[in-house]
């Protein structure tokens, strides 16, 4: 209908712009997280992620530790602030500029660069933009030198440090110590502190909890789609009804049951739970798909003497691949992303914690203000689902449509 006269132009531009804005709105939150996960901790709290490519003004503190001299009745220290001991390591590039300086930690930028500031004891302080400073005082200056604070433009600092810290659970110093004492980075990954451990746990929960329900559901779906037996309609209605049963109902009785039969809170328990909870959708999707397969193929196979088992394994399963893949993706995403089932059916601490629980309970609690770590942890947890999702999106959509568009 675009070709009909008078339809295009104006509306088409509006559409393009509208979609562009929506896409931007959808993308911004994730991009922000992604950028933040690579930024240095100080930079995150100094400027928004949208300013990440630009240098930021960070505050530093140091001591005027050059050797004091006497000038008449004044004591003087002078030198370059970038070369003082406490900050020397952070300004190695040579092209640094001071924006402002101050004498107290509460106001690190009280005076503009080049301005002369009165000190409390009657002396003066000047810090110029290039970092050269003159500090005078009527009192003798001790060896450590007086405190100075300053704001300096700091170039953007992108780092993988956040990832290393999140994966191993050790900060830079601890990692250096461990590596100095002979551990490799690979070994650090398997220490119990890091999220890599939880990553492995999530995989351990997810893979069996994806494969087993597919297998069980495929057989059931075949029976419901192509075999005649009394009560078939009732069973299908049951499956549809069970699609809606809230998970919350199952938590208390099943946890009690698991405790009684000795499974308790364990991987076995959570596999069984995910299998049970995933089945209605699996049976429903697969049955809807299998019912749509051509009747002739199945009937001619029967005439040729094939049993139901052979028809199922040799004809139906290969033909149902798109639906199987679609459900597999669904179940994978669902079990990978689950928080509630894991909180209830796995022990809350220690070896069995999965990533979502680690993030929601541990990191948000203990590292609530450490945004770099939070962003990185979130990104580690969504990386695998995103890869799976984008590589298998085609099948996911196809399966979704088989289930819900009539």
């Amino acid at each position: 209908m675009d070709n009909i006269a008078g339809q295009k132009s104006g509306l088409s531009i509006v559409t393009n712009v509208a979609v562009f804005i929506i896409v931007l709105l959808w993308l911004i939150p994730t991009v922000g997280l992604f950028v933040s996960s690579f930024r240095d901790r100080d930079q995150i709290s100094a400027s928004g992620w949208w300013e990440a490519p630009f240098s930021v003004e960070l505050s530093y503190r140091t001591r005027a530790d050059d050797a004091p001299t006497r000038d008449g009745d004044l004591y003087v220290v002078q030198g370059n602030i970038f070369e003082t001991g406490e900050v020397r390591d952070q300004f190695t590039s040579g092209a640094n500029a001071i924006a402002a300086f101050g004498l107290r930690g509460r106001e690190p930028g009280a005076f503009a660069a080049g301005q002369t500031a009165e000190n409390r004891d009657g002396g003066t302080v000047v810090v110029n933009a290039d970092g050269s400073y003159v500090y005078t005082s009527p009192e003798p200056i001790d060896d450590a030198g007086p405190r100075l604070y300053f704001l300096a433009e700091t170039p953007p600092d992108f780092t993988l440090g956040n990832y290393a810290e999140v994966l191993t659970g050790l900060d830079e110093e601890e990692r250096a110590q461990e590596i100095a004492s002979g551990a490799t980075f690979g070994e650090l990954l398997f220490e119990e502190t890091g999220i890599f451990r939880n990553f492995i746990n999530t995989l351990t929960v997810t893979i069996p909890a994806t494969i087993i329900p597919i297998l069980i559901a495929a057989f059931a779906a075949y029976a419901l789609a192509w075999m005649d037996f009394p009560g078939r309609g009732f069973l299908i209605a049951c499956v549809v009804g069970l699609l809606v049963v809230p998970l919350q109902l199952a938590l208390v009785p099943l946890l009690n049951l698991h405790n009684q039969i000795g499974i308790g809170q364990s991987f076995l328990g959570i596999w069984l739970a995910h299998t049970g909870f995933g089945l209605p959708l699996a049976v429903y999707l697969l049955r809807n798909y299998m019912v749509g397969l051509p009747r002739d193929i199945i009937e001619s196979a029967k005439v040729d003497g094939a049993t139901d088992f052979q028809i199922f394994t040799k004809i139906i399963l290969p033909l149902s691949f798109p639906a199987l893949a679609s459900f597999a993706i669904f179940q994978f995403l669902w079990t990978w992303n689950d928080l509630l089932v894991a909180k209830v059916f796995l022990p809350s601490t220690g070896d069995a914690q999965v990533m979502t629980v680690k993030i929601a309970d541990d990191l948000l609690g203990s590292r609530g203000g450490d945004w770099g770590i939070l962003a990185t942890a979130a990104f580690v947890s969504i990386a695998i689902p995103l890869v799976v999702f984008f590589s298998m999106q085609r099948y996911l959509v196809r399966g979704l449509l088989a289930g819900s568009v009539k």
Partner: protein
Amino acid sequence: MPPILQGIITIIIGVGGCVGYFYAANLFLDKVLFPARGPNAGRNINRANIVRPWVFLFPAVFALGLYLVYPVIGSFIRSMYDRSGDEFVGAGNYIRLFNNPDFRQAFLNNILWALVVPAVTTFMGLLIAQLTDRLKWGNIAKSIIFMPMAISFVGASLIWKFVYAQDPDLGIINAIRTSFGGEALDPLQIPFWNNFLLMVILIWIQTGFAMVILSAALRGVPEETIEAAIIDGANSFQVFFKIKVPQIIGTIVVVWTTITILVLKVFDIVYTMTGGNYGTEILPSFMMDFMFRDDGQATAVAFVIMLVVLPVMIWNIVQARKEMR
């Protein structure tokens, strides 16, 4: 790495066990119980075919029964006992719940979620499906909007924690506010409205799902009716609202229902973002407060959730039965 090893072994045992069960059960049925030879061959084949569906169905029916049907009954019975399960209290837990202001708050919030999120999500999905339909870069746009589907609710909550952060150097909302001269505030602590800020997260996640399905449905609307309407002088809006929407109303309802169900199960977002504080409690997060310490009240809350979902469930079954005829 014992967990990995344990995982691999269980995959082999679990998957192997499943395959083994189906294979062995069929073999047993065909060769031992009802062999298709000898004097009774015909009768045996028929008998085997009567039993076989149940062989195929048994694991699924067993798992469904144990993990979904039994809990409905089990939870109901458990909800009538006190916190340790020793003493029968009848409706006591329910009465205590309805006298608890936090529960009433959670209940109302939950209703709010169930009304707002499906409506907005379906509307946004429909809008985007229509807008991207004839765009050259429509597929890219759709992929981007579909992407949050893959992100865990916990991950999504963290993503939005950044957006909502109070510090204008972190949160883009407060950055915009302060750049217009406003004062930075914590959006998640504004009573009542913070509920909507949490809903935005779920809408962000689910719109892609609605869009994909509705977009397929829109494609299914026959071209002839649209052309006829255009020749009769209908403009784009009329074509959309008077021709397309009525024809896909069935799909719209399916999408709406699916998202409603999801809303009632949502827990992670509230738990991660506010922990149910500042008046954002919903039933599932309220239930979690009792989990592990007062099973009686926890199951009572679960049963209230079930009652809220019940109409959707009945509607679904009726719909499915209609289709089967």
